[in-house]
């Protein structure tokens, strides 16, 4: 069993931690960094509730070890709002009630942020494909 010293940036802030190799990135984010906006849903790499941006790309943080993220820049849902102002995606989700139970909403919002960065004017098919298909 190996442990490793890792340094990574989360929402612009640098963190250094000693981690066991088996620690999943989502557990680092939630339990060590106490950013609990990133949720654990299925735990089977299916649902996407745990989606974060890894160097700008949306990935499931339950399917990566924390040690693999050393040196990376991570964005989680807590980083969307700035100076107390909601991000336009958060505004949009609120305005359109873009959720069902809300549990996976942090992941949906991170995925949406990445989708719109790649493609600012997606049509319905682009959205379906970009979010889930």
């Amino acid at each position, binding site marked *: 069993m190996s442990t490793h010293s890792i340094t990574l940036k989360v929402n612009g802030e640098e963190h250094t931690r000693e981690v066991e190799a088996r620690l999943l990135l989502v557990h680092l984010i939630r339990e060590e960094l106490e950013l609990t906006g990133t949720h654990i849903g299925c735990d089977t790499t299916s649902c*996407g509730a745990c989606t974060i941006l890894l160097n700008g790309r949306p990935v499931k943080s339950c399917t990566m070890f924390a040690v693999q993220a050393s040196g990376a820049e991570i964005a989680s849902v807590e980083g969307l709002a700035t100076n107390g102002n909601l991000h336009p995606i958060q505004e949009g989700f609120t305005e359109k009630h873009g959720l069902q139970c809300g549990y996976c909403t942090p992941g949906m919002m991170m995925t949406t942020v990445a989708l719109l960065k790649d493609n600012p004017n997606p049509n319905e098919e682009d959205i379906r494909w970009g979010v889930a298909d």
Partner: protein
Amino acid sequence: MIPASFDYTCPKTVAEAVSLLGQNPEAKILAGGHSLIPMMRFRMATPAMLVDINQLEGLSYIKEEGDWLEIGAMTRESELDRSELVRKSYSLLADTTRVIADPLVRNLATVGGNIAHADPANDHPATMLAYGAEVTATGPDGERSIPIGDFFLDAFTTSLSHDEILTAIRIPRAVEKSGGAYFKLERKVGDYATVAVAAQLVLNGDGKIASAGIGLTNVGLTPIKATAAEEALTGKVLDDASIKEAARLASEVAEPIEDQRGSEEYKRHLVRTFTSRALRKAQERAEGGGV
């Protein structure tokens, strides 16, 4: 769920990775991790060591060279999906990549991992069988090339030795009048195939079939190459009769078992239907249409 403890290593060169594998018989390679990490969380896999090959340089590329399209093993599915070259000239591969799991998974999952994991439900293996691809394996004695037909020995078992890494996959370079298609039924987005069929055709100047490749996903312990169907098509014109015969032969070589995704009979029926559809689409594309 929390995986069992292991030692993590992150070599910087292929030689170092090969040597770590050689010294540690219980080590597993960690590529995109989207098959291995779920298995570790379920403790279906409890490797004593992981050799993370994500930091190895030079294993992520898509390029035409000589008679081949060469793809680095660590190329992410999303990179294949975005490749203009793949979309333009390798329709079977483009089809396949787009139906693997979901877009988040495709951001990390690799083509090499999809093949080396040898899960009969994975999608690239059947496609590579249809293309007649070759795998490049790098071990202590350097590189060797393995025809894809010799690669899959059993479920989750390949002809790679423990200290070999799948470093590249080569597909015969696209020629004029060639095209392919991948048809997959999944119960919901992101599920493994109930059945999927890959077909690749090369046509002669007279419109007859110069060569046909057909691969079947998730209807046996390994991906299955429908050799009899391929041979029956060679030299023929693709019409209702030749398609029907090829579809019948493909469904006969399938070895599906009944499970939560359907009965054996249903799956054989799907192999027939998808073989027909994939062949028609492949022909349309080989003739320059139907992207």
